[in-house]
């Protein structure tokens, strides 16, 4: 039972046309760069992608939009992407917008075996349309469901061959919940270590949730808003 695969191409090879993928990251921070590149090379089509954002024109999920591999995006915010806007307005691309906390919690629910939960976000808005509303302690909540996905693809900082993962800084974001939520979870890591090299107490995602792991290469880690102060 070996979870380690040689590279991104091997990791994603069972992904088929029409599948639903979760992709970790917030903006361009903590995105699975190697796997996205492999999906573009592979050319798999009609994907539904659950990801907080949709990348930018020439990076992140934006690369898969350019090649028309994405049928539908499920995100909380999709700005900063002209090609996205063009495909959306032309009707080539579907988009479902979901409050960010609800997006996170629907991933978390999937990984925790919770099929549905109540959350206040979106009550009284168009997000509530068609959803069950219920009052608890005088406040109104919507019933939201766990996401159902075929693969989750996440990016971690360090991982071991048993699939244990540690994230770095705010590159953690959606990655842990998605790692736990995927029917099959692929993790790409900057450093791939032997079992025991990560401290048991510091692991963010236990290996049981990870099915395939590989050491990524040539991380670009592009910055969207490089903001500095003079010192």
């Amino acid at each position, binding site marked *: 039972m070996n979870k380690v695969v040689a590279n991104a191409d091997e990791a994603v090879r069972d992904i088929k046309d029409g599948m639903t993928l979760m992709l970790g990251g917030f903006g361009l*921070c903590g995105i699975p760069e190697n796997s996205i590149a492999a999906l573009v090379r592979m050319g798999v089509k009609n994907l539904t992608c659950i990801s907080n954002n949709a990348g930018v024109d020439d990076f992140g999920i934006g690369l898969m939009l350019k090649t028309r591999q994405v049928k539908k995006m499920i995100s909380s915010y*999709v700005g900063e992407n002209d090609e996205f806007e063009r495909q959306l307005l032309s009707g080539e691309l579907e988009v479902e917008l979901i409050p960010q906390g609800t997006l996170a919690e629907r991933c978390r629910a999937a990984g925790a075996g919770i099929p549905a939960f109540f*959350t206040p976000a979106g009550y009284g808005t168009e997000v509530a349309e068609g959803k069950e509303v219920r009052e608890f302690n005088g406040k109104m909540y919507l019933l939201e469901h766990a996401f159902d996905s075929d693969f989750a693809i996440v990016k971690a900082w360090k991982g071991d061959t048993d699939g244990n993962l540690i994230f770095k800084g705010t590159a953690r974001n959606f990655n842990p919940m998605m790692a736990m939520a995927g029917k099959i979870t692929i993790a790409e890591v900057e450093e791939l270590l032997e079992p025991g090299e990560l401290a048991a107490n510091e692991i963010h995602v236990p290996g049981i949730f990870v099915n395939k792991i590989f050491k990524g290469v040539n991380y670009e880690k592009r910055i969207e808003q490089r903001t500095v102060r003079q010192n």
Partner: protein
Amino acid sequence: MLDKNGIAKRIARELKDGYYVNLGIGVPTLVANYIPEGMHVTLQSENGLLGMGPFPTEAEVDPDLINAGKQTVTTLPGSSFFDSATSFGMIRSGRVDLTVLGAMEINDRGDIANWKIPGKMVKGMGGAMDLVASAKNIIVAMMHTNKAGESKLLTECTLPITGLGCVKKVVTDLCVMDITDRGFELKELAPGVTVEMVKNATAGRLVVEGEIPTMEI
């Protein structure tokens, strides 16, 4: 009248020692520049950081360390990182003491519209709907009127709603108002602003009682 920095400066006076604060993108972000010396305020960034520090120097820039506006930031002693589910957990469970947001429109019952303009490309609500549905203390920072000179403080929002009855206070270029059962209660005027100017610029129910002081900023 206040400029953006003036609005931020006035809102900073609402901070209290020990507060955990979430600042939205735009004018709200500027509030961080006016935290009083010696006051311990912790900034929460909903992408998974508590204890957000200033922007980095060139040497400190780290692509794995950004805020919810996707800007590079830094940490401070006592900072912690966490995943997005935990981040919105702390927001929903009411652990954030103060949330400052921009808005396109608000109404006199505290409803807010700040995510979508019909006919324009919709970019999404991000974390705004979670924040407004859960924060116990929301202050809106915005201009009193839009570019066409129309009031953004209404009886009914015309734009799609982000959340209902959640705004407690609004600070605009003209004034500070509390939002109560009676509507917009005028509390303070910006320097050089008259009650008449506020009346003319406010479409929703306005309550003006007694002498309205000019704000200290």
